[in-house]
């Protein structure tokens, strides 16, 4: 019953999610153990249908596990009531999706301030916070633009700014670069790196090996289970030349 006192901000034990019954039983998430430390960037990769998006939904309280235990910032989520869970989602978790999910009829700054307004902030406070965040993602000059006037990469940066409004314990991103071209992906990766340096905890589910390669820790998922985990330590920029046959 006691809450965890260790350094993990996100912690899962034996986490499971299954659909269907008998022959049709699908174990979308199958007995997953996970610890994410504060400030860590973790990437989860795997083929379509391996369960990584389902896992992310469980971690963020968007979906309920079939079994296992789940803690976020010391609070146990798996048996929390609906109202309390909604509060955790609002105050503790920032979500970023592949399709951005911005409101088309609202400007960039209005999109970013929306969660603050819904959480009961005054319009002035919410606007100030939204303006700060747009500055942080490098879009201060696009604050009054509608999403339709922004590039894909700019829209995703607006969505990331929105995810940061409540100073969430963890940002959960589902294929954040899935719809982006190479340059926009680079912009999003730079932004994630900036957040990482500012101590933001980040869990990204992705097909994109560029995100996977730049994370602190990389987990491969298959058939609902973790099959490989690796820390790509280094930053051995010294042998970059080998990549273009300038040496060796």
């Amino acid at each position, binding site marked *: 019953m006691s809450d965890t006192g260790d350094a993990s901000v996100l912690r899962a034990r034996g986490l499971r999610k299954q659909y269907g019954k008998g022959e049709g*039983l699908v174990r979308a998430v199958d007995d997953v153990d996970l610890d994410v430390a504060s400030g860590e960037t973790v990437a989860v990769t795997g*083929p379509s249908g391996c369960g990584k998006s389902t896992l992310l939904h469980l971690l963020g309280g968007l979906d309920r596990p079939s079994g296992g235990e789940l803690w976020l910032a010391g609070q146990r989520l798996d048996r929390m009531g609906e109202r309390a869970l909604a509060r955790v989602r609002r105050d503790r978790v920032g979500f970023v999706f592949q399709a951005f999910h911005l409101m088309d009829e609202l400007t960039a700054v209005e999109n970013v301030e929306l969660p603050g307004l819904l959480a009961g902030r005054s319009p002035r406070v919410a606007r100030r916070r939204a303006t700060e965040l747009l500055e942080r993602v490098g879009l201060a000059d696009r604050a009054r633009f509608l999403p339709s006037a922004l590039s894909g990469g700019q829209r995703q940066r607006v969505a990331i700014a929105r995810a940061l409004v409540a100073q969430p314990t963890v940002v959960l991103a589902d294929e954040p670069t899935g719809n982006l071209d*190479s*340059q926009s992906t*680079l912009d999003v*990766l*730079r932004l994630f*790196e900036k957040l990482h340096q500012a101590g933001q905890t980040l869990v990204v589910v992705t097909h994109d*090996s*560029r995100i*996977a*390669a*730049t994370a602190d820790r*990389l987990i491969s998922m*298959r*058939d609902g289970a973790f099959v*490989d985990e*690796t820390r*790509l330590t*280094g*930053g*051995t*920029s010294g*042998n*970059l030349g*080998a*990549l*273009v*046959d300038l040496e*060796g």
Partner: protein
Amino acid sequence: MQQEVVLAMLAKEPSHGYQLRARLRQALGPLGDAMNDGQVYVTLTRLEKAGLVESQSAAGRPDRPDRKVYALTAAGQQRVAGWLTEVSWPRPDLTEFHLKLIAAAAAGLADPLSIVDAQRHELLRRLRDAQRAAMAEPDDSAAGLLLEGIVLRLQADLRWLEACERKWTPRRNRI
């Protein structure tokens, strides 16, 4: 013809040259068409001289290479084991890697998936270096374009490794 490829094809069991050729044909499909039949025998003769392979003539018909049965020596076994676990870089050769997985599985010497994992980790480390370097370049940098090319190539290699992984993953038994 890379010597290790021929050696690895022998790791499963002692074989005639024509059997090795057939295995390579099967593994390479249309890509094997360019392979000269004589190449396998030339390679086998070199390997024998190097002490990595030994041969026995079948049924008293000396000096006909196509009648000989070839087998790995202890040194040959060692060479194959080393080749299977070595991560190929800086030029990951697709054909060589493909044959490595086939040979590893056929001879039961190594798990193809662990070979794929080792290669993936290496490529990811390279990608990390290249991507971090790209992130540090200003947008108008000329070097940024070259780095993008490197990143795209590494991504293509990684995607192919995903396909290798799918192919060599045994179907998980579900209760």
